[in-house]
């Protein structure tokens, strides 16, 4: 008998035994009404934005909240310039620039909540890379050394400082994973109080399961990469980004104005 | 296990002294008896009682444990069922756990349901001593006196299986003259664990020494607890490590007589009806000073 049928048959037989010590014969399947919300966050959209930022800060990330798309664009560009300057300042003089210093991995404009970033950054002598196929050896090599990544978010949870990053045709996973620094563009309209609230909304809209399946990979990210494996001492940036900065901006105003 | 809520307060209780207290620490049984009697409770001691069977149960010898469990139910069952006692009280959280929780496991088998039900009925009226004093009798002060620093070690079964913790702490806090201090990492197991202490003596010893270190750090002269088994282990370690602290059963403090193990007296336990111990005198004098009617 193939392993599959063997296992399933044996399992069914075992579960039919009346004197089986565990599990109990009757169990209760949780319903939408039973389910608890584990953490909470309250208030209007600004309160949620601040809470999201505050939570991100406790996770060793940083954030800024701005009001318009234009300000968000400026903030993003400013942050990237600052990062390069920081990096160069902290380095020994004999090797001022390294491959990748000015390379930025980015989601395609279609997937980003702010337009015009790529041309603006290119003007500032950044090399903006929109990954197309990471299994291509040349591209893989180019992606490898990029020091910064820019992505949007599919959703964010205020209570835990978490962002949801779905993969997709225009949404490279690498942009949020391999670089040392990760810039998150977080439209306020995407901030939900909790993960449960986001799921409930998606479930209601009938999009939750499709979102997971079609994205093929969805990452919940809460802060920069870290480890406590060395005697419990916190170290940052083990494999993922060491620095995580969120630019939170009000897209609702913009939406209303059209 | 659902505990009985008494409509009329119990007047007669059976004392399950436990085999260890009986043979090693009679003072604990005496203190328990006197504490109960002072509350106007008539104490009955069924002479046929021996051991609850926990050592066999914990070691996995269920058939053997069932022999002793049946015996316990035979000794205590009828007196509870015919109403001649309203409760069973034991100065041990661990033994009460055995009779109240683990008998239920022992008689799980469908053939054993009558015994299981009997065990459950008994469990609903079986209490650890401090639990009985506080929860059933509503006692919060036993008018005891103790000069010195005291801390409290919650024994695992009492704390986690019976959920009894506030009760002994409350009674201890009321002891006159005693300075009650917190024990660091109080809820950590002392490392006794029955046969574990012999089977895994090295680990048990290490855990005991950690407890002893914490006792030393607490600065307490005595550490009170509700089980003589853990007390034996802790005292054994304290004495071996020459740490100036002694473990005593809480009943001995609450009854105003420190255990004979603290200052081993040469004379034997008193055999008179009055209680001539100095703690007792202090308690009586104290009560008189407060204008209350003393003891009995």
């Amino acid at each position: 008998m193939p392993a599959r049928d063997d296992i399933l048959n044996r399992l069914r037989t075992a579960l039919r035994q009346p004197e089986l010590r565990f599990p109990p014969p009757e169990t209760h399947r949780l319903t939408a009404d039973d389910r608890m919300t584990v953490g909470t966050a309250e208030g209007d959209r600004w309160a949620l934005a601040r809470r999201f930022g505050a939570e991100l800060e406790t996770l060793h990330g940083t954030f800024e909240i701005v009001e318009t798309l234009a300000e968000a664009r400026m903030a993003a560009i400013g942050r990237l310039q600052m990062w390069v300057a920081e990096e160069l300042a902290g380095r020994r003089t004999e090797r001022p620039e390294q491959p990748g210093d000015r390379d930025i991995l980015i989601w395609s404009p279609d997937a980003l909540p702010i337009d015009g970033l790529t041309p603006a950054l290119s003007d500032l002598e950044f090399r903006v890379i929109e990954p197309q196929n990471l299994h291509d050896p040349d591209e893989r090599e180019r992606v490898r050394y990029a020091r910064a990544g820019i992505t949007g978010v599919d959703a964010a949870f205020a209570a835990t400082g978490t962002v949801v990053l779905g993969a997709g045709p225009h949404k490279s996973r690498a942009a949020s994973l391999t670089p040392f620094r990760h810039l998150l563009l977080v439209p306020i309209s995407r901030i939900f109080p909790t993960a449960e609230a986001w799921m409930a909304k998606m479930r209601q809209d009938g999009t939750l399961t499709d979102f997971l399946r079609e994205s093929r990979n969805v990452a919940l990210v809460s802060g920069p990469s870290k480890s406590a494996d060395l005697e419990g001492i916190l170290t940052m940036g083990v494999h993922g980004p060491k620095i995580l900065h969120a630019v939170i901006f009000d897209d609702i105003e913009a939406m209303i104005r059209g | 296990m659902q505990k009985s809520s008494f409509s009329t307060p119990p007047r007669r209780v059976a004392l399950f002294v436990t085999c260890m207290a009986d043979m090693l620490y009679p003072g604990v049984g005496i203190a328990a008896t006197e504490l109960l009697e002072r509350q106007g409770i008539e104490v009955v001691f069924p002479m046929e009682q021996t051991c609850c069977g926990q050592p066999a149960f914990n070691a996995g010898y269920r058939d053997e444990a069932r022999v002793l469990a049946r015996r316990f139910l035979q000794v205590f069952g009828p007196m509870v069922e015919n109403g001649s006692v309203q409760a069973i009280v034991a100065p041990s959280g661990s033994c009460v756990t055995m009779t109240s929780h683990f008998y239920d496991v022992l008689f799980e088998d469908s053939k054993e349901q009558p015994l299981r039900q009997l065990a459950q009925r008994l469990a609903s009226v079986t209490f650890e001593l401090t639990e009985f004093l506080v929860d059933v009798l509503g006692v919060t002060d036993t008018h005891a006196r103790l000069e010195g620093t005291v801390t409290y070690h919650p024994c695992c079964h009492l704390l986690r299986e019976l959920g009894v913790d506030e009760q002994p702490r409350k009674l201890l806090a009321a002891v006159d003259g005693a300075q009650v201090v917190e024990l660091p990492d109080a809820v950590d197991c002392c490392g006794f664990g029955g046969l574990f202490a012999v089977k895994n003596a090295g680990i048990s010893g290490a855990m005991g020494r950690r407890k002893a270190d914490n006792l030393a750090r607490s600065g307490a002269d005595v550490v009170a607890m509700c089980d003589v088994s853990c007390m034996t282990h802790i005292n054994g370690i304290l004495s071996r490590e020459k740490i100036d602290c002694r473990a005593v059963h809480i009943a001995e403090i609450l009854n105003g007589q420190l255990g004979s193990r603290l200052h081993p007296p040469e004379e034997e336990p008193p055999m008179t009806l009055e209680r001539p111990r100095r703690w007792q005198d202090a308690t009586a004098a104290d009560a008189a000073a407060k204008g209350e009617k003393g003891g009995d």
Partner: protein
Amino acid sequence: MAVINLEAPFKERVANALGDSHLAPAVVRATDRMLQARHKAMNSIDGEGLRTQTRQMKEDVLRHLPDYLEQLERNFQANGIVVHWARDGVEAGEIVRGIGLQNGAKTVVKSKSMATEEIHLNHVLEQAGLKVVETDLGEYIIQLAGEPPSHIVAPVIHKRLEEIAEIFHEKLDMPRTMDPTEITSAARVRLRNEFFGAQMGVSGCNFAIAETGTICIVTNEGNGRMVSSMPKVYVVVMGIEKVVPTVEDALLQLQALTRSSTGQQMTVYCSMTSGPRQPDQPDGPEQVHVVLMDNGRLQMLERGYGEALLCVRCGACLNVCPVYQEIGGHAYGSTYNGPIGAVISPALAPEIARFKELPHATTLCGACRDVCPVKIDLPRLLVDLRSDLVEAKTNPRVEQLAIQGYVKAMSSREMYERGGKFASVASNLLAGLTGGEIKWMPPPLNGWTDHRDFPPFAKKSFREWWEERQKLRNRE
């Protein structure tokens, strides 16, 4: 550094652990830190509610496991994931090795996984000529040191920074440094090469969602995302009990797990893979394989230990366990250690006697049950195992005789009283020799007196006092 020899007898392993003066302090420090974070994370919310619901969810999964597994399989396949089934570790190992060889893999990057530890996958792959690289920082360190993990979630908990620095110096030819940041960035650079060069990624699975066919792995470092995103082939080895019905259930378990494990509200990364990349996606694996593995789990259920299948491997029971704190993980000599290890190591093994010491290496203090996010009654399972061990006749004959003797003595009042008298005389004699307390007892009781004194029995028992008092009263 203590020698780690998992093949040594249990007593010897324990003695080694107790003899290592650095071990317990290191373990205590780390476990206390995790435990305090856990308490904070659980107490800041309705922790009891979270535990109750997670348990309810998992109980329901176990009751309907075959159905959920079939649903999971269907959705995996619909998403383009290749599903394999393995009865035991050998089959699972062969499947993974086969996938590796078929794809011409030379280097395999792995994200920390207890399921693959269980089947010694690294060894299997290395035998086939593949290079296996553990990528969790802690796991990487112990792989360099040639040791197994000593904790379910914090594999290198037993090592001090000095020792880690020495390993990096020795194995990676790195200048000696005690700076954690430097050690971390050295690991980052080296492992980055492996992530970009490896042909195959392997991970376990924290939970898999039946309704969507999704594999979820949680990490703090990001290696889970790397392993599931960078190589062309991604292989998941999961125990059959890891399935959860819905996305909401996954969220529930995720929160129970992270809060009770490291005390985080959310783990840094939860990577959820529902298949190989779509043709128009820039990155992600081209093949995803899942090995659904039994390896003793069914037998555990059949033996009556199904409750242990609720375990989400958070490690809280290890952190709170005073025995684990004294001896660390290696002394257990099994893949899983601490209280849950003491239950599932024998319950998963073909012969429970294989790990017969473990169920006895606990005081049954119950602290583990109180922190378990799915409320597994570990002490109960441990006494059940002890009873099964008695039935399997694996205990020493002398122990059985001693227990029978004790039960006999306790079965009649006469014998009990006579025994008490005898013990009183004998123990007082013994105590008299050493001045008050008994400092020596013959084997097997020397276990007691090796570490602590024993008081002599009372000269007059309680029952004697009682009888005399009754007489006195009757005379009045």
